[in-house]
């Protein structure tokens, strides 16, 4: 059966297209290593604009389903984590909130509108107010981690008044707002720092730093997007996987 895009659906078109494509990969219709249809073909198949297709494919790349190969096309990836494997890592360890003792300076705790694809990263409408937190984390007197977090304002408006220098954000979310994080997606890459980021982290602009982007979910709802920039020499990640059965 061909799944089609429903224009009466309130979901954005690119999200619908994304869901359709994910489905095709998950059910094996689009096999590992095979090339997915070109942008033009997808436009015709689903009667959507090129912009919609680009957005959906970009998101598919970001979530690790496909890989773009310059000049060749876009191919279905082998999934790193198969369904039989579950990730046992306590996310708090990955979150860097538990094991390392940080002191924290809150640089910003304010509200803004999503611009420049933030709505996509947070999966919210572009006219939704967002709480923006910018925290610089220190070990001793040395700034080592710059964290920017974005949350839909309406899920925890009081967060603007909370003390984030003394308390862990994740603990506040769980204990005060009863927002239980059930899933975290991590994207790790190496990226050059901007001039302003470099100043905060004591790095020359353009120096490579480790970028950890995280999407936090409570059930099926995404509740936070965090961008953490770390001085490269400080951290080692530990990930353990175990077969369920």
């Amino acid at each position, binding site marked *: 059966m061909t799944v089609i895009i429903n224009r009466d659906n309130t979901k954005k078109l690119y999200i619908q297209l994304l869901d359709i494509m994910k489905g095709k990969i998950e059910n094996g219709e689009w096999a590992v290593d095979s090339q997915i249809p070109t942008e033009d073909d997808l436009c015709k198949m689903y009667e959507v604009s090129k912009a919609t297709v680009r957005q959906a494919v970009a998101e598919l790349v970001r979530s690790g389903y496909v890989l773009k190969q310059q000049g060749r096309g876009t191919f279905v990836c082998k999934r790193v984590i198969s369904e039989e494997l579950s990730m046992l890592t306590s996310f708090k360890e990955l979150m860097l909130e538990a094991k390392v003792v940080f002191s924290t300076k809150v*640089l*910003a*705790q*304010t*509200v*803004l*509108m999503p*611009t*420049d694809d933030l709505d996509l990263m947070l999966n919210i409408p*572009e*006219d939704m*107010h967002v709480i*923006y937190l*910018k925290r610089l984390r220190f070990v001793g007197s040395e700034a080592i981690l710059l964290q920017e977090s974005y949350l839909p*304002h309406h899920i925890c408006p009081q967060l*603007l008044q909370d003390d984030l220098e003394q308390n862990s954000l994740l603990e506040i979310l769980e204990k005060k707002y009863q927002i239980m994080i059930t899933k975290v997606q991590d994207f790790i890459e190496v990226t050059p720092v901007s001039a302003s980021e470099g100043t905060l982290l004591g790095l020359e602009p353009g120096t490579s730093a480790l970028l950890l982007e995280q999407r936090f979910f409570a059930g099926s709802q995404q509740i936070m997007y965090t961008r953490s920039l770390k001085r490269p020499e400080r951290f080692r990640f530990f990930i353990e996987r175990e077969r369920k059965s």
Partner: protein
Amino acid sequence: MTDQEKQVREIIIDVFEFPHVPYWFTIRQVSGILKKSLSGGKCLRPVAALVFDEKYNLLGHIEMKDILSGIASAAFSGQAEDLEVISAPGDETTTALKELSEKPVSTLLTPFKLFADPEDSIAKAAELMLRNNLQILPVLENQKKLLGVVRSTDIFEYLSTRFFLA
């Protein structure tokens, strides 16, 4: 309660009806946000965004007209004779507009210097806004807590009903 005694409290608009931007957002980003609020269907007049600092203190607001005057001064400086400056911009104009687009919103915002109290009469707020040519007036409780804003459109509604249509 007589008409004169109607309070500001009754015409307050929640600040979340307006887009929020921090002062470091660029003119390009704010233009995008205002454009979206225009096409979003629930656009309030004046078309404006509220500008906050990093501690969520309200600094001021930026209206569509502020951006238009920014464009005007970037495009028309010293070129009063030339009327094709926007339809066929020269290198100089293009550069000036590009520079403007990356400037922070703080360069064009209208800072808030005056405030109303929710207990103030609408007439008092109206006078303050008319005297100072304000489109938006923030309302603070106990001179501290931001409750919302009063808009010139609601003041117009109030005054026109009271003086012209009563």
